[in-house]
């Protein structure tokens, strides 16, 4: 039971808002100590795992391409594409954004949208304006919060369909330690049923929001 101390270190570290890399290193040392391993032994085990898991960090090789395209207006073009979609109720707007976010994340474009890039400048103001037109009282948090939530749901349940996202590569790595070889495509295909369920559940909530606002 003593080895659970490592988990406690993680929790305390996050509560105290320490740098997560520092917290992880401390947790590894504490876990090693609690299970009777010498610090150098744990350092070597950690280093070995870090080396075999390098492919998790491989995905950043896309950044020069994305950065170059952003320099020439990729984000502006993506925004114009979303902004050109008219017929604005808050529910429809966020359902479309949910679909957009899931589909683009599914082809690996996870960073063309996000809280800073798209939700704050674009989606949240548009959603709030649409909702207020439908009778939502001004000054509340809930529509803006829902816009941020829609971004997260779209990202989480779209990105795992992409072949080379970190979580897929992590699963591949873990399965390999048990001698099970799987292709990233095997894992990413099995993310599709949950992606559909997420779209249906969150989309249903957004559709009901439109109905509730219409009844006011």
């Amino acid at each position, binding site marked *: *039971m003593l*080895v659970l101390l*490592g988990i406690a270190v*993680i929790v305390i570290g*996050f509560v105290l808002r320490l*740098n997560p890399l520092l917290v*992880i*290193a401390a947790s*590894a040392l504490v876990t*090693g100590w609690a*299970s009777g*391993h010498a610090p150098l032994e744990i*350092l070597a*085990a*950690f*280093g*070995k*795992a*870090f*080396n075999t898991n*390098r*492919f*998790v*960090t*491989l995905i*950043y090789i896309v950044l*020069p*391409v*994305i950065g*170059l*395209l952003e*320099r*020439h*207006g*990729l*984000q*502006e073009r993506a925004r114009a*594409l979303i902004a050109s979609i008219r017929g604005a109720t808050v529910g429809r707007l966020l359902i479309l954004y949910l679909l957009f976010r899931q589909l683009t994340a599914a*082809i690996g474009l996870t960073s*063309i949208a996000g809280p800073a890039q798209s*939700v*704050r400048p674009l989606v949240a103001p548009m959603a709030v304006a649409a909702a207020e037109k439908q009778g939502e009282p001004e000054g509340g*948090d809930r529509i803006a919060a829902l816009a*941020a*939530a829609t971004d997260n*749901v779209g990202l989480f*349940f779209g990105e*795992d369909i992409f072949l080379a996202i970190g*979580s897929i*590569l*992590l699963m591949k790595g*873990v*399965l390999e330690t048990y001698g099970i070889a*799987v*292709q*990233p495509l*095997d894992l990413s295909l099995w*993310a599709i049923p*949950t992606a559909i*369920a997420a779209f249906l559940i969150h989309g249903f909530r957004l559709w009901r929001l439109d109905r509730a606002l219409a009844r006011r």
Partner: protein
Amino acid sequence: MIGYGFLYAVAGAMFAAFALLSAADRGNPRRWGNAGFYALISLSFIAGDRLGDLGNGVLVLGLVAIAGTGLMGRGAGPTTSAAQRRAEASRRGDRLFLPALVIPVVALLGSLPFLPPFKQSALGHAAAALVDPKQATLVALTCGVLLALAIGYAWLRPRLATPFAEGLRLMDGVGWAAILPQMLASLGAVFLLAQVGDVVGGIARLAIPDGSLIAAVAVYALGMAAFTMVMGNAFAAFPVMFAGVGMPILVRHYHGDPAVIAAIGMLAGFCGTLITPMAANFNLVPAALLDLKDKSAVIRAQIPTALPLLAANILLLYLLGFR
């Protein structure tokens, strides 16, 4: 045979470029921290296999020391203004999406020869002779990136260093968080060595009635979500719950399909990410960015989606995992 060596050489070269550009970036008050961080990652990619386990451990300590003592900043490399970008966006139109789409399309097409029905064909055998089948997707993805970069150079005519300077701008935004997933995966390995998964799994298994598959599936999925809530990240929970319940019970005992158990289990963990303040970057940062009065407003907006979706994942695991 093309495999990890090729992939890591590309990544190592890119991080080396990031390190050099950081060192030259006088607009970043902490440029040496960034340069050192990227140089260590580059070293890991290029020479990791020759450093030895302890050497790699020391390399990690170097990364943690730089990130943990706040030695990293954000660069201020010159880029285009918002007005210039709007002008270019309307001039270049939707063609701007094409180079970005080349990457996933090549990754997908390059993976196809390694999958049935192409696997058994002459094309499949030729591909398997050329590329390590275990790394097929990553090799294809890397080729897609190189192709997209070549298209970008030919079409947009940037200077040689410009794509890397722009990439560095994005990389600095991610900062030390870039290696967080790799660090959490490594912590998972230490947890495995210390048999934390056995302890957590033992606690979880106490909750499973004998012979009930649906209960075992529920404990696995709920445990994944709960452990994700504690750790703030499904990446940390996955190795533990997979070792504790997924592998011994769902795969070995009930003969579940490992790919399904892993993939949907991870997504059950993502439901936990939606409802925990530990996942600060997804739940607290947006609330701050949007100036919300209630800092947990985003989490509260996500609970009514996360809980039914968790139930849906349990059902999907049960229905798809044991065909």
